[in-house]
């Protein structure tokens, strides 16, 4: 076990972890505010990637210029889904809102995948790199796109943390998360805040899809693994905790990288789940979670 191997595994794990954090941010935000498990998160990630792909191929613009299209597509899709399907969970029109939201988003996930598969193409596509080239580092090289995704992940999560903590809208979101009736009584337009926060959560998923499309490719079922990772990271970090998402993503990335490098690639995922089990046993609410 040489120093270059350790440093390479550390760097690779850190960057991978920050990418996982970015993927987790949206699902964590939505759960934090609305207590809704968004099982269609992977498909909003897919929508962001396809929006970037269509913008670059149809409008002939460079990949970096397609960012607004991805964000807009993610936000509009999420806002619409929340407005017409998920909002029933807090309007009390249904008996089991949690189960309803879970099944609705699960159904949407299947629907979105099949729409793309049937009406466009089942084959893998890709956008061109946002920042072409790679940077060599000890035993490996890392693409600039990967570095960019990691940096944007940190910026996004810190900005989101500050936004929720310091702004008026952020306070309204926190009030909605704590007590919806109480928020209404203090003059918060609760429904609107839910629409917007859900849209922002799905736009974050779309942002991840945009940034990772040049690295991972674009195809109908591309959201499956990000969904798995985001739920593991959210549980590890604490349900609905933004700072928890950041730390949990990094821990999972490092667990992946070190397990694969020093034990066996076959156990790369096992490392992630062992960390999750240990944390849940010691702290059932996750690293930054709070009891309701």
């Amino acid at each position, binding site marked *: 076990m040489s120093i270059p*191997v350790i440093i*390479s*595994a550390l760097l*690779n*794990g850190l960057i*991978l972890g920050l*990418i996982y954090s970015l993927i987790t941010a949206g699902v964590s935000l939505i759960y934090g505010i609305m207590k809704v498990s968004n099982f269609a998160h992977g498909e909003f990630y897919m929508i962001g990637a396809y929006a970037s792909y269509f913008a670059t191929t149809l409008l002939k613009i460079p990949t970096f210029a397609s960012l607004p299209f991805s964000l807009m597509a993610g936000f509009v899709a999420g806002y619409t889904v929340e407005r017409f399907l998920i909002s029933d969970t807090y309007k009390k029109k249904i008996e089991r809102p949690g189960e309803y939201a879970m099944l609705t988003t699960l159904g949407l996930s299947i629907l979105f*995948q*099949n729409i793309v*598969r049937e009406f466009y193409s*089942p*084959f*893998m*596509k*890709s956008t*061109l790199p946002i920042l072409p080239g*790679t940077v*060599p580092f000890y*035993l*490996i*090289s*890392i*693409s600039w796109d*990967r570095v960019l995704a990691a940096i944007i992940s940190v910026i996004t999560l810190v900005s989101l943390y500050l936004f929720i903590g310091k702004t008026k809208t952020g306070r309204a979101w926190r009030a909605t998360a704590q007590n919806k009736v109480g928020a209404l009584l203090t003059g918060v337009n609760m429904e609107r805040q839910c629409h917007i926060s859900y849209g922002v959560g799905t736009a974050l998923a779309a942002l991840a899809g945009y940034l*990772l499309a040049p*690295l*991972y*490719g674009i*195809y*109908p*079922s*591309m959201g*499956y*693994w*990000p969904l798995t990772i985001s739920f593991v990271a959210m549980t590890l970090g604490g349900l609905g905790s933004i700072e928890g998402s950041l730390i949990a993503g990094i821990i999972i990335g490092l667990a*992946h*990288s070190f*397990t*694969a*490098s020093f034990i*066996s*690639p*076959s156990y*790369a*995922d096992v490392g992630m789940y062992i960390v999750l089990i240990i944390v849940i046993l010691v702290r059932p609410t996750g690293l930054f979670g709070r009891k309701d």
Partner: protein
Amino acid sequence: MASRIISSKKAVTKMQAILLVVIIVVVAVIGAVAYMLMQGPTGPIKIGVITPLSAPADYLAGSLIRRTAELFVEAQNKKGGVLGRPLELVVADQTLDAGTAISNLVRMVTNDKIVGLVGPWESGVALPMAEATRQYPTLMFCTYSWADNITANKYPYVFRVGVANLLVSKGTIEWVKIAGYKNAACICEESAYGLGMWEGMNKWRDELYPELKLTLITTKPGKTDYTPELMQISTMDPPPDLIIENENLPHANTMVKQLYEMGLTPKIQLMSSTPFPLWVPDSFWETCGEAGIGMINQDSQSPYVEFTSIGQDFSTLYEADQGSKPPVWIAWYWDCLRILVKAIEDTKSTDINALKDYIENIQIQGTTGFIKFENDPTPGSIMWHQWTGFKFYFFKFEAVGETTEHQIYPPVP
């Protein structure tokens, strides 16, 4: 409810209700008898097609298999059918769920009375289907379901006109030896295909090229980021001179991309045993771009090898219908159907055991070569109901967009 009907003045009387039930039963019995008579010696001969027709199974391949079967039946019926009876297809979705596929198989065997079936695709489903033919006997033909056990398990009614992991891996190791590589990292997905290839490569390494060092790197299908797993290649000492990839889509493409991104290729030669870049080149090159340059691909089809006259007839028919030449595995399904029909014609029977005995010893010109089955009863041997008359070809991509332009082995005639 019944008493309310009977007690109501406006409702039917008890007598009328009994009469109605009797009429329904009589009509149903007459219908069933007529249906059974139609299925007799004068009715159509039915062939089952159980193939993937919906996602997430490979429904693109499945739709081509179904169309090929339809073309075959149309052509055969134009010639007067088989034994004077028309051929008829019974089609069902294989899906990726073995339970669904098996229930379709059971229905076809018990209700539709098929004489045989074609179309199984993914090994994970094809293998349980093969197992089901022990209890629900029907002739089953596979082509591109690679799992060794499809033939190694000695199913009495299952035949394979196509490749198997053990045969593909033999082709791989033979080429590795000729090319002179000494130390190969093998990336194998955790599936019947990936791990089957690993077992096969080890077996043939021991027999054909014991100096070769093989290192296994397993991956989980469906992931998006394999950099932690691929890190192991960076840390291998001595570094490998060859990376062999045994992965399915879509992660097969992701892997090519990430190997390049990590600086492992083209410094280390990459070879893939799956011919996806040749089947869906647009998607491969759009996804991988320059990461695909230098990669070597193994396939069982070469543009330098002509179809036989049978194959050319089929190719013409297929091209007129689909607008492109048939892939080799589609041509092999055509062969499966020809084998089944020839067996029925020559035995003048649809009895499954008579057909099985005949097919075991059949010798027939196929689309890509002469077909006869190996019938080695040795336990564990895959040479059971297995055709072996195919070859492997290796292509190197010298530029973006290439497919079979540069055949590196065997040398172009």
